[in-house]
């Protein structure tokens, strides 16, 4: 044992600084993968995930589908990634988890490559790398697959694109330019925020790879790197052309909403999270009931403290290093642009608070923060001019190494706490009932292959805004032909809130008056029209409770619907899904079929509670 440690120590001593940095980076990336692996392993499919899985299972995931907008996102790459997991098996979280971790590894490697390319293998790179790996900003994305397929490819492409871009700027390599262009296209293909990649590309070129004054610099950068701008421009124009023709416009954002979103995002969400915040999350009473999604809920005092710390750090670094403010400028511009994009795209639909306090929308900033941290504190290799100590010294301040270490430790501890508290509800069966529900439903339908009405699943499984993805037929489509949905039938049962089969009922008063025939109600021997309380034009179910002397069939017509349903001997209920408005129902029994209709009901089907005792 001691020989092994001795040998290890000797090997370590023999390594160059650069090699040690590489080893440390690997270790850090591995540690992040373990942490996020823990978070992902305990999570499951949620919300939009089911929409994607349903599409794939129903064979609707065609190539055209990849270019269809999802909400306001055009995300062919992301959708392709869902197809990959969907085709592995029914609700295979294992496949999704592997995909998530592979994507995370790619993003982390891309970020590390970016930092190496900018700054080289110096120990100072490990702090920005650690910021990317462990700040909670990018954490909310990894537990939610639908967010992952957007954001992690976007992050990986963004950081790698920056790296390739810098290689091109520094060495004028053609391959680097081609690579940067392809990566830009990949970023666009996974997430709308890819549109902000050029902001960084331009800022880096102008600030670090062009000479001259305020006006001279942009011109030189423009002229000097015209090939790059042309290539990026073509990609961006192509994307915009596709985007604008496929994605429905969201309308002009309200300037007040926009301003509030930007304000709240930058002041309350972003600043604390750069220091490992938000430390406190809340569920914000969001629509759709209880869910695992959490929102920033940092107390004002901690927000102020974060700003104080960040402001002082910025002041110190700017006073100590020339051109450190370039980094602050890059961060400020990108953060502002992100907030504006979120404000324009999301705040209108989801409300200011829910858009700006959801850290998920700022996941890509983790790598940008890392880059800017590096740009502020380290020289950029091969740059015309970058951050360097001021001479003569302006701020003569010697902070002991242990204080820096202590500060970093506090940030790391806060980050882990924020991450852990964020992951908790995703691992909690009460907040995430989906897995249990799907398992129960699958079990119930496998044991007893029955016809079920195509109702919507409980809000806790997928909320109503996901319509029509929240129909049983679509949500459970990965289970294949075990799910047999019908628009009419006899004595139907449906899945309840736990995923068990329960008799379906309409919890409403009967829509019919008591029938004229005392014992029988409405006695039906021939085509009979029965008046009911008028029904609006909506997708409702109609139930007909009857007593029949023999098996047979009848045709039910109501509104725009006319279907033939079986009649069974005895006391039963017929179920028919109707469309259109109507105030009477016509029942036409087949030859030889007579029945007594007791009452009829119209409304939504709900699983009958308390049927446990009956069984």
């Amino acid at each position, binding site marked *: 044992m001691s020989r092994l440690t001795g040998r290890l120590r000797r090997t370590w001593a023999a390594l160059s600084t650069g090699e040690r940095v590489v080893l440390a980076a690997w270790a850090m990336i591995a540690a992040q993968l373990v942490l996020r692996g823990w978070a992902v392993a305990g999570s499951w499919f949620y919300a939009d995930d089911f929409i994607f899985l349903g599409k794939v299972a129903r064979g609707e995931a065609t190539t055209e589908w990849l270019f269809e907008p999802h909400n306001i996102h055009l995300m062919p790459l992301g959708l392709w990634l869902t197809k990959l997991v969907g085709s592995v098996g029914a609700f295979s979280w294992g496949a999704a988890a592997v995909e998530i971790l592979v994507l995370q590894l790619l993003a982390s490697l891309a970020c590390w490559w970016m930092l190496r390319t900018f700054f080289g293998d110096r120990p100072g790179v490990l702090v920005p790398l650690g910021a990317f790996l462990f700040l909670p900003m990018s954490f909310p994305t990894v537990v939610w697959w639908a967010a992952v397929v957007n954001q992690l490819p976007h992050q990986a492409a963004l950081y790698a694109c920056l790296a390739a871009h810098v290689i091109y700027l520094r060495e004028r390599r053609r391959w680097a330019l081609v690579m940067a262009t392809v990566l830009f296209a990949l970023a666009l293909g996974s997430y709308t925020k890819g549109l902000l990649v050029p902001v960084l590309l331009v800022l880096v070129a102008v600030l670090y790879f062009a000479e001259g004054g305020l006006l001279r610099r942009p011109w030189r950068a423009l002229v000097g790197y015209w090939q790059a701008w042309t290539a990026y421009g073509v990609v961006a124009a192509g994307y915009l052309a596709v985007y604008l023709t496929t994605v429905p416009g969201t309308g002009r954002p309200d300037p007040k909403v926009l301003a509030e979103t930007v*304000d709240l995002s930058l*002041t*309350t969400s972003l600043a604390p999270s750069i220091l490992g915040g938000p430390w406190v999350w809340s569920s914000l009473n969001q629509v759709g009931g209880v869910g695992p999604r959490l929102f920033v809920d940092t*107390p*004002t*005092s901690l*927000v*102020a403290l974060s*700003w*104080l710390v960040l*402001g*002082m750090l910025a*002041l110190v670094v700017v*006073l100590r290093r020339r051109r450190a403010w370039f980094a602050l400028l890059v961060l400020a511009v990108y953060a502002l642009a992100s907030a504006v994009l979120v404000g324009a795209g999301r705040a209108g639909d989801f409300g200011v608070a829910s858009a700006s306090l959801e850290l998920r929308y700022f996941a890509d900033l983790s790598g940008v923060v890392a880059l800017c941290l590096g740009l502020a504190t380290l020289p950029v290799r091969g740059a015309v001019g970058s951050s360097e100590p001021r001479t*003569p*010294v*302006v*701020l*003569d*301040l010697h902070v002991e190494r242990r204080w820096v270490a202590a500060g970093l430790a506090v940030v790391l501890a806060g980050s882990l706490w924020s991450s852990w508290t964020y992951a908790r509800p995703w691992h909690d069966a009460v907040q995430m009932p989906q897995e249990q529900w799907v398992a129960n439903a699958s079990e119930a339908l496998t044991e007893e292959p029955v016809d079920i009405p195509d109702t919507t699943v409980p809000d806790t499984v997928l909320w109503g805004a996901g319509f029509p993805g929240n129909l049983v037929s679509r949500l459970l489509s990965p289970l294949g032909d075990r799910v047999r949905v019908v628009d009419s039938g006899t004595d139907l049962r449906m899945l309840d809130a736990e995923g068990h089969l329960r008799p379906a009922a309409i919890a409403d008063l009967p829509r019919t008056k008591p029938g004229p025939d005392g014992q029988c109600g409405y006695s039906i021997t021939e085509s009979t029209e029965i008046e009911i309380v008028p029904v609006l034009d909506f997708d409702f179910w109609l139930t007909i409770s009857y007593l029949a002397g023999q098996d047979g069939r009848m045709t039910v017509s109501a509104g725009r619907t006319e279907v033939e349903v079986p009649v069974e001997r005895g006391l039963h209920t017929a179920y028919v899904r109707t469309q259109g408005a109507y105030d009477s129902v016509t029942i036409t029994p087949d030859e030889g079929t007579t029945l007594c209709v007791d009452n009829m009901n119209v409304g939504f089907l709900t699983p009958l509670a308390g049927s446990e005792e009956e069984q």
Partner: protein
Amino acid sequence: MSAVTDAPVRRLAGRVRDGALRRWPRGRVVTAVALTLIAAHLLFRGWMTAGSWFMWDDYIFIGQVTLGMDDFGWLFHSHFSLFMPVSFLLVKSVAWAGLDWPVVATQMIVLQALAALACWWMLRVVFGNRARILVPLAFYLVTPMTVASSVWWSVAINQLPHHVALFGAIAAHVTYARTGRVRWAIVATLFVVLGVGSYLKAALIVPVLLGISVVWFTRGPWRTRLRTLAASWPAWLMYAAVTIGYAVAWWSVQTGAAPRQRCELPSAMSTSVLDTVVTGVLGGPWSWRLWTGGIDPFVAASDCVPQVYRGSPDLVVGGAPQSLTDAPLLLVLVATLVLAAMVFYVWGRRHDALRAAWILVPYVLVSALLVYAGRAGTFGSQVSAREVRYFSDVAALLAFGLGTVIMPIRGALHRPGPRADPYLRLRLPRPVLVGLAGAVVVGSVGSSVAYTLPWHDRWDSTAFPERTFVNNLLDDLDRRDERSTSVVDVPLPPVIGNPVIAPFNRPSHKMASLAPRLKAVSAGTDLGIIDDDGRIQLARVTGGSRAEPGPVEGCGYLVNPEETIDVSPVLDLPFWMQVDYLSSMDGTVVVTAGDTSVRVPVEEGLHSMFLATEGTFSEVTIRSETGAAVCVDTIRVGDVEPVEDAR
């Protein structure tokens, strides 16, 4: 300005500069500038005071004096846990004038002048008569943290004497520390007495004095410092005596404290420090929210429901135009950063310049704790911690603290000065400093004006409902052209007279100074009632007659000389009784019902008599004392309301 008018002005300015100012010694120039600043301050504050009016406690004080409750013991009673004999003396000196604002306003402006002069005197004594004292003086004169004492009399009589005391005590104590002459310790003690006699927070003056001695007049290890301190034992002895005496006096008059809840503590601290003090120091909060505009948004934003909200939320809202600080979060953050950067700048360039932090930081924290203990724990931190008036003494202490950053205290052992080898080798250019100071001044004036305007609203019932109400009342009294108007003495609307101040929520107390023009009575003939707008209307008692129609045809119940009338039983609650009658001549009757027996005048003809009743009863006895025959028609028992409302 055109060249024609410009030239003489420039000539004049040049002459003043070259002539008067240059020939004057520097000290006299400083004095002239200081007095000019004070005069400008008094003009501005004078405008604020002149347009303002009485509010809330003001009526209580005037009512107490008018009703003759102001005996010697009254000076020492506890008013909402404030022990303030000096303030009560100030009340006595002007309350004779009743609701006469100019008299009260004059007192406020005089107090304001005394506070400003005391600040100037303190700065001169502590730092010497040098140009730099103008900076802290200007800060004290312009800061919006003290605005409440310029518009609200009750605040002025507490806080302005407190400021005078704080400045005076600091000046005298520093002189004592420098010279060792005990007479200055006595002067300081007298100022401390003045302070504790006017405002609760004056209890912090002695710790401040102790802090000054420790921070600037001792050095070395703790043992040495203690020995140095012990040398000024006469001062500590006197201060301790006053403090103990005050504590005993305060405790002896305290009644039970309102319940408070712990969950308000964190937000009381952070809101006080960040939203109120930090922005205030830089001339904020720039944006106010009127208390009458509703405090619900603040309450909704907090997890902790204020204690009082659990009772009746109506009671929380006063008729007051007080404003709460409401700076947007972004500005709060900017203010915090600017302040921190300023502190950083001073630290990086000057040594011994931040010693005042040892006193200021604890002072602000203790102030916030006091706000929690006295107000926020009950009324909610989002209301109480946003009141600048609870932090006005912080501004006064800051004037001293600011001085110690840029000037040495005369005779102190530690003197601030530029670091020989500064950490920060960057000198802010003068335009930046001037610009910052300018921004603070402009912001301060803006914040002050914005705070003041609602107080000047005579008729805006959303900004200052109480003033509108009383204005309507005075207006009505003027138009009535009668020597005296009698109204029923029933509680005023909660916005005008909050039940927590009972009996001063009734016109007999709150409007006592309007007598004899307005008499609020508990029994009388054809009484009026003050309606919700402050207008006087005829009163009537709600409901129908409680007595059967009387037996005598054309008369009802005949009272000659005595008659007992059965009424449907009345519960044991305070009610009003209205008796409609026809009397043969003027006279008096004695009405007995339940525990009530009142002598009421009757007038010839058809009239209504009103009287407040207590206790349960089922019959009413009326006895004519003067031989007048009285026909009683209806007897009603219930609440009184304006006749208008009944229609």
